């Protein structure tokens, strides 16, 4: 199951774990990604708060947590090659969290709603 935020993060839910990244639409808007600022393993995220940032040459965007939870994986490959996000944003998630409350997912958009949201130019 994949859900999206209005700030263009996605979360792919696999059991209790959620893999968080930025959408393909967002990576296109941002252009060439040059750096991803990621949290440390074990950090506790609050839904709606920023947990890092993603930078291109002339833009930067905060990463907003779609759910609360503990960071259990960090995609180290992005430190070496942040442009993996441009190559495939959906495959190259940024972090994985243990979702502390599945109800956090309720107000997120599904694929159809998100596609519509992007088409409306948000």
């Amino acid at each position, binding site marked *: 199951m994949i859900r999206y935020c209005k700030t263009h993060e996605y979360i792919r839910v696999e059991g209790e774990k959620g893999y968080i990244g930025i959408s393909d639409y967002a990576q296109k808007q941002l252009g*060439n990604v*040059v*750096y991803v600022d990621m949290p440390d393993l074990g950090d506790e995220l609050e839904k709606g708060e920023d947990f890092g940032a993603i*930078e*291109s*040459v*002339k833009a930067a965007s905060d990463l907003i947590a779609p759910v609360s939870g503990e960071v259990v994986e960090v995609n180290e490959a992005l430190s070496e090659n*942040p*442009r993996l996000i441009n190559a495939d944003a959906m495959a190259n998630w940024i972090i994985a969290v243990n979702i502390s409350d599945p109800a956090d997912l309720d107000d997120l958009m599904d694929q159809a709603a998100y596609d519509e949201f992007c088409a409306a130019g948000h």
Partner: protein
Amino acid sequence: MNRKVYGKLIFELSREGRRGYAVPRSGLTADDVENKPTLPEGMRRSAPLNLPEVDEPTAVRHYNNMSTNNFGVDTGFYPLGSCTMKYNPKINEEMAAHSCFAGLHPSTPAFAAQGALELYWTLQKSLCEIGGMEEFTLNPFAGAQGELTGLMVIRAYHASRGEGEKRRKVIVPDSAHGTNPASAAVCGLEVVEVKSREDGTVDVADLEPLLDDSVAAIMLTNPNTLGIFEKDIPRIASLVHQAGALMYYDGANLNPLLGVARPGDMGFDVMHVNLHKTFSTPHGGGGPGSGPVGVRKGLEKFLPNPRVVRRTETPEGFPVKDTDRYAIEYSPISLGSVSATLGNFAVQARALAYILTLGSDGLMDAGKLATLNATYIKESLKDCYLLPIEGLSKHEFVFDGLRDKSTGVTTLNIAKRLLDHGYHAPTIYFPLLFHESLMIEPTETESRETLDEFIAAMRDIAREAAEDPETVKTAPHLTPVTRPDDTTAALNPILTFDNL
């Protein structure tokens, strides 16, 4: 300017054993002291210091060759919007280097530095007259630090009224420069954006509901970033003051108001000016600047320490001696200090030389001529460049790219092609109100011939965009280097020669 880049680095000219300076001989030897100066082993540098080893002629030629890769106001026309790239008079440089000031230590007691303090005080007072303010501090080192200092004054004011915790919001137009919100954030204030109307002026209807007792101040430039005078300013000031908040004037666009109007008379309580813009001090490739802050009566006690004051009588009521006329003071209710010293004194000296040189008469003309020059360019080009806002504008204006969008030639392309014509580019992609912003500010020191040539070059580029867009899109072609690869620079940063 060069057509070919001089690209050597000083490290590549270094040869072991060369030197470019003879250290003065004091005549002292180790035998002249009883205890020889020694440092414990653990406190000494162990790694050898690897600095270039070059002789004086090699070093001088290196830097001079390097300078020819650069473009300055002395090289040619620099219509960079919001940066006020006016001519930097040479007498200012001579005065800034005056031997009686250049060697003065910042801790020199006031009685021995009366001349320097008088200079400082005279500039403070001159800025008060020009800004319509009660007092000025010259301590802030730059416009950005001036903003920060001004916001600190505002916080200190609210705190003195017991509203320090409550009033933590700063209203900033969505068209403002990024420095405004950044300054507010560094000052511990929360930024609230107010919408601009199509012409970039504040939407009073949007502002009104934002004004409550949580607001500390509103930050505005006037004229705004589109060069348009904020006509509603008296109404805005009255609403803001009714809400108990203060009006902050960002002096980035003060130049067109020289000789016309004063921020203090428009209802602003706190302002900063950029001596490197309005008062002709050179930008120096990014600094040093100076960002003095002025305040209306009642706020002067919050200005940063140290302060320079003029005394006429002693606390006991006797006339002061000439050696005590100007004094340095530290006020306990000041906002604190934003600098260790009295700021960039040599920059202040340049600004005072400029004000004296122009005098009241020259200053009265400066703003209007700046506006004339900008309007002349605008009117001469609006048939081929898209002018989104018609009507009166001041020292600068914004085109939204070419009128003819079918060529695919962007503002960036136009800016780069202008470099080939021997001009610095205008400010591009700011303000964010338009997609293809091209912001032009000529200043008052450009001749009609210069403006006509620039207009011809801009028309040339517009024609070329239609006839041979590829040439424009791949510009620049005639500069020392062509377009740099920004992405690689940010992806794999090489920040020193050792990593090259």
